[in-house]
């Protein structure tokens, strides 16, 4: 019985271990590549609303077959600006992993902090 319990525990721990570190790194690299266009989104809206600042927590999925970033939404939206939100989501939606991961990957916590560089 202990053998079966061990197998079950192994399978369950496999479920909880999260994303493959290699794929996670690739996702991180793709997110970093979007920083400049996201910064442009922020800059454009700061001209319109100079008080704009705050944190986003983005969740998204990576399509297993195409590697495309899909189902992008915000779990937290402190700036609460519809134009910034739309622009950032549009930039993230352009991302695609070079090598499709083969299975859908869900990422539930990508924090993005917006802050003016000058007082």
């Amino acid at each position, binding site marked *: *019985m202990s053998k*079966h*319990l061990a*197998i*079950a525990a192994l*399978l*369950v721990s*496999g*479920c*909880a*271990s*999260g*994303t493959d570190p290699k794929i996670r790194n690739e*996702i*991180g690299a793709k*997110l*970093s590549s979007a*920083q400049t266009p*996201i*910064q442009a989104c*922020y*800059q*454009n809206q*700061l*001209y*319109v*609303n*100079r008080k*704009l600042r705050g944190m986003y*927590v983005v969740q998204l999925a990576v399509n297993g077959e195409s590697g495309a970033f899909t189902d992008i939404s915000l779990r937290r939206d402190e700036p609460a600006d*519809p*134009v910034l*939100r*739309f*622009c950032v989501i549009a930039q993230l939606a352009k991302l695609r992993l070079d090598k499709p991961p083969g299975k859908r990957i*869900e*990422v*539930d*916590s*990508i*924090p*993005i*902090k*917006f*802050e*003016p*560089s*000058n007082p």
Partner: protein
Amino acid sequence: MRRMRARWLWALSIGIAGAGCSAIMPAAKQDPFPVMNVTAERPPPGPDKVILTPSNIAITDKVQFELGKADLKPMSFPLLDEVVTVMKANPQIELVEIGGHTDITGGADLNRRLSQARAESVMKYLAAKGIKASRLTAKGFGPDVPVADNAYPDGQEANRRVEFLIVKQGPKKTVVKDE
């Protein structure tokens, strides 16, 4: 009895593996990605509602029109007068495209025509205030270039807008002449 329990456990293990983790287990708590710090320079504080940026003349207020028409509401005249002031003070701006945009409510063709007429209304106002017509062009985009999600009222509100895009500009001129 022990044998049955063992079989049950084995079946459970295989079931978990076969059904996929997400179907059986609650979503595993993931480590968040590192915070992406996004910074940008904000314009200095002031009463200005019109700000010259490298690519456009940004307005912090909206150009208002009569409902369903291209007639400017008088409340928007001071805002457009500021645009005039900025254009006169920056003669290096050689061509500005006045873009009219709508949300997706109503017919797209009607919205394109309305936004074109509204952009032309703004152009006429600026020209009447002394901006050379050769520095201005008007284009109505209707709902084709949204800047926010039309699924929500705040997004629709953001999409109903007039933009002043700098299409062509030369080197900064220090001498400002009155047009």
